[in-house]
């Protein structure tokens, strides 16, 4: 057998070890000890909240510094101190690591190749993405928003014969998001209303 264990083989082995310790008659305490032995002792533990459903399970991320002095996760698992999930996770929650890393055929982790890492732009009529820098992207997006808003802005409307200040644009729509944090959504709402946007919705309604 190769020295490099695939994740599945690894799980099988640890499962067997735990089962063996129960059979040996030393019971629950031994299982805890066995679990303690396979914990990641050299990494920093950072608690996070699962990104999937609305239960709000706690997840512990094990974090180390990589060769570029950046924090990287080497493992994620259910947070045993979290009162709701008490350490357990579902299939999605326990796969969170996959968002960042997947395994190659040798069982070695590598960055998930599908993660977006650079801003991408698609020109009118084009059949491809092109990489652009952030400054150009944000500057261009701001210009598009401004042009569309200013050309389609209603200062007032007549309602039942009365002139009413409405300060709105119907030409821009804003969606999202239930994935984002409260602080992000707060800023979204604040900036969207300030621009006069009224077409506002997100996946809560879908």
């Amino acid at each position, binding site marked *: 057998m190769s020295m490099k264990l695939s994740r599945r083989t690894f799980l099988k082995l640890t499962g067997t070890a735990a089962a063996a310790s129960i059979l040996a008659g030393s019971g629950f305490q031994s299982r805890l000890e066995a679990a303690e032995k396979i914990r990641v002792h050299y990494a920093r533990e950072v608690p996070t909240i699962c990104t999937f459903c609305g*239960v*709000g399970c706690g997840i512990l991320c094990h974090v180390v510094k990589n060769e570029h002095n950046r*924090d990287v996760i080497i493992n994620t698992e259910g947070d045993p101190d979290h009162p709701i999930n008490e350490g357990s996770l579902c299939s999605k929650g326990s796969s969170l690591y996959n968002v960042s890393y997947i395994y190659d055929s040798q069982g070695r982790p590598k960055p998930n190749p599908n993660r977006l890492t650079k801003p991408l732009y698609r020109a*009118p*009529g084009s059949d491809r993405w092109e990489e652009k820098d952030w400054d150009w992207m944000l500057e261009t997006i701001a210009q598009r928003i401004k042009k569309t808003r200013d050309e389609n802005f209603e200062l007032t409307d007549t309602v039942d014969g009365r002139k*009413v200040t409405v300060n709105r*644009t119907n030409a821009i729509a804003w969606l999202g998001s239930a994935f*984002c944090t409260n602080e992000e959504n707060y800023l979204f709402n604040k900036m969207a209303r*300030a621009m006069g946007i009224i077409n506002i*919705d997100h996946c809560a309604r879908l």
Partner: protein
Amino acid sequence: MTNHWIDYRNSDVFMNIGGNTAENHPISMKWIEKARETRGAKLIVVDPRITRTAAVADLYVPIRPGTNIAYLGGLINYVLENELYHKEYVLSYTNAAYLVSEEYDFDEETGLFSGIQDDPDRNAKKYDRSSWSYQTDSAGNPLKDPSLENPQCVFQLMKKFYAKYTLDTVSKITGCPKDILEESYRLYASTGKPGKAGNILYAMGITQFTHGSQNVRACAIVQLLLGNMGIPGGGVNAQRGQSNVQGSTDMAILYHIIPGYLSAPKAASHPTLADYIEKETPAPPCWWSNKPKYLISMLKAFWGEHATADNDFCYDYLPKLDHRDHSHIGLYKYMGEGEIKGLICWADNPAVTGPSAAAKRSYQSKLDWLVSVDIFENETASFWKKEAGANPKEIQTEVFLLPATASFEREGTKANSGRWIQWQWKAQDAPGECKADLQIAYELFKKLQELYAADPNATFPDPITKLKWDYEGEDGRVDIAKVCKEINGYTVADGQYVTNFVGLKDDGSTACGNWLFSGYYNNDENPACQSRIKETEGIGSNLGWSFAWPLNRRIVYNRCSADLQGNPWNPELQVFWWDEEGKLVKNLDIPDWPGAWSFEEAARFPYIMLPEGQARFFSNGMVDGPFPAHFEPAESPVPNLLYPKATFNPVSQRWYEGHLAETEEERSKYPYIMSTYRITEHYQSGIMTRNMPWLNETMPELFIEISEELAIELNIKNGETVLVESKRLLKNGEQKSIKAKACVTKRLKPMTVNGKQVHVVGMPFHWGYCGMRKGAITNDLSPSVGDANTTIPESKAFLCNIRKVG
């Protein structure tokens, strides 16, 4: 949720209706199991399909999709007929005794209430709700009959309304055998006994209907009748499907509200701040009498020093709504008509999740520009690609796709279903040039402010240039603590945190971004949302873990956990203790009444957000009726048995001509009822999970579940690829279809509906043309027709056809 996940352990009977806890909220099942182990709790699952939750239920109740009100109406009738309701609760805490106007009426032929009018703008009907009101004395106080015998009292009207929902009729409509119906009613009604707790759990399986909001109302009526609201183990609990869908709703990423569930101002009714306050503010002691404080504090948080009493605190800067619907279905229609020219999409993928998605993707080509922010390339941003079936050359839309960070690469808070606002710490530095949405939003708006400041000819720049946007931290990065402080609220003069929303003022002296969150981050050292103190004994409130809105309260309406004298209905789950002088001496949850109130005062007004302070069986708050009435879905194979001349919900807007299969001939072309749903191994549009190999391995591709009986009829074998069609894919006489693998299963059975056999089929919707695993988009089939109150699309019951390939 009115209660929270851990509180499930306090329930005696669960009714899981239109939700699939084991599949879609898997970890919360442990709290249902805990109640079963420790209390002998029973689990009822009401669902068209034997789901993973139904598989472990004590009682499985199969009903046809779209017949929840018939089922729940039958339960209401059963409880009333057999006098199984919680009499003291109903009399003390609800509007059962209130007398209703003699003008109120209901027509049992058409299913229409009094006040019906045509609404040609929406190609539907609407109600003048003035007759759905209480009789009042000369001072305007509602008249009541505590004997509950007056035929005009809410209780008697409700009894009369649901008298038609007999076991026979409900069985014919739902297709559920009578004995199972009755057994489920008997079991759930057992929680009407004081001291017992019944818990209704639901999800999109009751909301995604043209009458979805009334489904939820029917649940609330059941819970009030049985005295299950405001008690440990009770409640109407919406199990939410996304990690922060509660918070994104609280923060008003919805056109019709602004943060903290205040109405978004409308041009017609709220042209000025004075109009808004007059129309939107009820009299005290209703808690909404504080609304002006919350609105004005929000305006101060938005426009800072520029918001003064002299300029109505910049109220004019807030956009005013027109009379139209600007929700998902509406705004995509306006996009198709060319009115919307720019779309900004944050971690949202409507090209997969929206109804009639194929049509919607084609509408996106009318846009001048589209911005998408995501961690993976998604279908919405890539709608112009060949893989999407488009011709890139013909699409002139500019698309900007910005790389965001994953959840564990950013910090901030998320509100779970139980309203717990928990801090999510950042664990890892994001790869490449990814930025958190907070940073992107911050930088983008700063750019916009610079552009407006530099352009003397800009159109009305003030709301933008004057918006308070001072969140700068180190190195040009946004300082999240500053955002948190603004949301929590502070006093303007000295910048000190307000403790909670009780400290907010309507004179401009306080600023607060969202009153409901006030208290979640009211100091720098140890904000409540970061607190991690687990409860060691108690009723599961975990008051030291995170912060639950409002005011860290875990069970809302919790005064109702005790009788008028303050004695708990269930002494084993006592929440509050008062001494002989009536002073609160111990509490296991945060009281849902003002601190100055005695327990008697609190008992007179336990539903503090309502003007009458008591819960409503009869309500004028819904646009489509004061009582939930059974309507068929927009596409249904059978007529309405209860109200023979009824169409589908008459108040639901008809958006597109020829969109629905409504004639006899069309129904025969699309004979099967389709219900869409989610599965454990994938998430929403699938754009995250389809890029996660472990999950793709467990659930690799799209499938359609069909019963063994239908498989025999159609000669379809398990694993065979089939074509699925709906009226949405009928274009110029040509019927298109999507492909899916047939999953022939015992989980679905043909149903007998009023003597007619109908087949129900089901499909998940997590696939698309991007990512590591691809598949057809189920929502290409679903109709753009929505609930009358919320416009949530009817994804749980529409008609389709299935064909063998070739």
